[in-house]
C-alpha cells in the first residue's frame, strides 16, 4: 500500500506535463463518441415503443409509448422457439468446446510425445481456412447422410462445425503451459490416473481461462449466421439470427415489430455482457497479447 503511494505521488505530479490535451477535452471527445455509438440502440428501443401511427413522424421520443409491438412479436411469431433453439445450440457447443479444447490444450502443454508440435501447427493452421470453403462440402455431406430428417439430426447438423475450436485449443494450451509441472508429477506419484489429474487438478486451476473461452464461444454461436442459414430446412429449427433475418420477408416491412424483435434479441446478450464484463475483457486481453 505505502510503496504504491510513494511511486504514485511523483507520477501524478508529473503527469500534466506529458498530456498535450486537457482532460476536459478528452472527456468531451469520449462522451461524443459514446453518444454516436449508442444512438442506434436508443433509436431501436424508442422505435419499438412507438405505435404504428407514430412510426414515421420523425420525433425521437414516442408520444404514447406502447408495448404492442412486443406483444405481437411474442404471440404472432416463433420468436420464443428461435430463442430456445439458439439457447440449445449455443449451450451444447459451449460445453463441448470447453471440454475438448481444454483436454487438447492440456495434452499439448503437459505431455511429451512424438508429433506434438506438428499436431499443434496443424490445428492452428485450420484457422486460416475460410468458412465459405467448408460450408459447401459440409452441406453435401449433411445431404448425403440425410442428417436433417430427424429432430436430433437437425440440431446436430446445425451445431457440429463448432464442437471443437482451434482458437480455444491455442488459448488453453497457453494457460496450461504456465501451470507448474510439479503438481502433476506429485499427483502421478499419489497414483491418480491421468484423466483424473486433468479433470480434478489441472482444470480447476484454469477457471478464468475457461470462463472467458466459454463466454466468447457462447456469444459467437448465439450470433452464428452463415451455416445455420444454409443448413436449417424447416422453420421449427431456426435459430434467433436466422429466424429474425427471414422475418422481414415473411412479416412485410413492419418496422415496429422488427425493432421490438431486435431489442429482444439484444437483451440476453447485454445481460451476459453486464454480468461477465470483466471476464470478457480479460479474455480479449489474454488473446490479444499472445498474438
Amino acid at each position, binding site marked *: 500500500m505505502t510503496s504504491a503511494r510513494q511511486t504514485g505521488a511523483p507520477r501524478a505530479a508529473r503527469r500534466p506535463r506529458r498530456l498535450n490535451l486537457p482532460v476536459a477535452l478528452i472527456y468531451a471527445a469520449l462522451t461524443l463518441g459514446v453518444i454516436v455509438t449508442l444512438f442506434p440502440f436508443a433509436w431501436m428501443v424508442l422505435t419499438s415503443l412507438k405505435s404504428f401511427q407514430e412510426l414515421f413522424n420523425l420525433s425521437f421520443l414516442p408520444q404514447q409509448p406502447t408495448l404492442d409491438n412486443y406483444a405481437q412479436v411474442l404471440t404472432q411469431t416463433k420468436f420464443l422457439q428461435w430463442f430456445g433453439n439458439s439457447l440449445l445450440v449455443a449451450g451444447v457447443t459451449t460445453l463441448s468446446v470447453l471440454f475438448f479444447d481444454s483436454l487438447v490444450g492440456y495434452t499439448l502443454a503437459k505431455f511429451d510425445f512424438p508429433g506434438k508440435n506438428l499436431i499443434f501447427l496443424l490445428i492452428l493452421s485450420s484457422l486460416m481456412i475460410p468458412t465459405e470453403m467448408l460450408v*459447401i462440402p459440409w452441406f453435401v455431406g449433411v445431404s448425403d447422410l440425410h442428417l436433417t430428417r430427424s429432430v436430433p439430426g437437425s440440431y446436430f447438423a446445425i451445431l457440429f462445425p463448432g464442437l471443437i475450436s482451434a482458437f480455444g485449443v491455442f488459448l488453453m494450451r497457453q494457460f496450461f503451459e504456465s501451470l507448474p509441472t510439479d503438481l502433476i508429477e506429485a499427483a502421478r506419484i499419489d497414483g491418480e490416473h491421468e484423466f483424473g489429474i486433468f479433470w480434478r487438478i489441472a482444470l480447476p486451476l484454469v477457471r478464468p481461462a475457461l470462463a472467458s473461452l466459454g463466454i466468447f464461444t457462447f456469444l459467437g454461436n448465439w450470433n452464428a449466421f452463415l451455416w445455420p442459414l444454409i443448413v436449417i430446412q424447416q422453420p421449427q429449427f431456426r435459430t434467433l439470427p436466422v429466424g429474425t433475418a427471414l422475418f422481414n420477408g415473411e412479416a412485410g416491412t413492419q418496422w415496429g415489430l422488427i425493432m421490438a424483435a431486435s431489442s429482444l434479441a439484444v437483451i440476453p446478450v447485454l445481460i451476459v455482457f453486464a454480468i461477465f464484463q470483466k471476464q470478457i475483457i480479460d479474455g*480479449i486481453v489474454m488473446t490479444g497479447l499472445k498474438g
Partner: protein
Amino acid sequence: MSTTSKARPPGGAIRRQQTRTAYLFLAVPLLFFLIVRFLPTLMALRMSLFDWNILKDTQPFVGLENYTRLAQDERFLTALKNTAVYTLIGVPVQIALGLAVAVMLSRVTALRGLYRALYFAPYVTPIVAAAWVWQWLFSPQFGPVNTFLTWLHLPAQGFLTSPSQALGTTAALVVWQNLGFQIVLFLAGLAAIPRTYFEAAEIDGATGAQAFRRITLPLLNPTIVFSVVTGTIAYLQLFTQVVNLNFTDQGGPLSSTTTVALYIYQLAFGRFQMGYASAVTVMLFAIILLITVIQLKFLTRRYDA
C-alpha cells in the same frame, strides 16, 4: 525426434505410457479436425474441378475450366474489388479509431470502466439486429441521419440505396461493431508499456507526439499486427452484414456491396453451382493465405530490427 531417442534409455516405459495417453486424449479431437476441417478442404479443392450441381445427376469433370471462367466473370471481379475496398477502408479505420479512443481512455481515470463498457456494447449486439437499425437510421425517406443533415442545411443522401454510398455505409456498420473490441485490445497493449519509458522521454524533452511515434507505436506493434492480421481475415470473409442490410436485393444496389463470401453463397445455395462456387472459395483461401503470410513477414519485421 532427437530428444525422443536421447530420453529413451532411462524413461522409455514412462515415455511410451505418456505417448499412449496423449493419443488417447487427442483421438476424438484429431478425428474432428480431420473430418470437419481438413477433408472438406480437400473436397472443396476436388469439387472445384467438376461442374458440380447438387440438383443434377451427373457431375462431369471439367479440369481448370471453373478457374478460367473466373477471369471473365464480371460479378466475381466486382465482388473481389468490393471485398478489397471493404478491407482497405475497414481495417485502417477501425485500428485508427480504436487507437485514438484507447489512448484517450488510458489518460483518464474516472468512469474509464463505464466508457469502455459503453463502447463495447455494439460488439455483443446480434449483427442481424444491428443491420435492421442501420437500414432505418440511414433510410432516405424517414431516417434520422438525413433529418440531421437537413438541420445542418445539407442535402439528404441515398446511403444504402445509392450505388456509390452503400459500400461505405455498410463498412461503417462493421467498424461500429468492431470498435469496442479494438479499444479493449489497445488498452491492454497500452497498459503493458512501462511508464518509465515515457518518463525518460519526458526528461529528454520529447513532445507528446514524439513519444507516441517513438514509444507507443513501436511497443504496441504486436497488438497492431494481431489486429491487422485477424481484421483482414475477417473483412475478407464479410457476409452477414452485407446480406442483412438488403435482404431483398442481396449485395445491392447494383452489386455495389457484394462481397466474395456473398457471391459464393449465391452461387452455391442460390444457383446450386457448387463446383464453380468451390473454385471461388479456393481463390479466397489462396488470397487469405498469401496476405496473412505477407503481413506477418513485413509487419513483424519493421520494428524488430
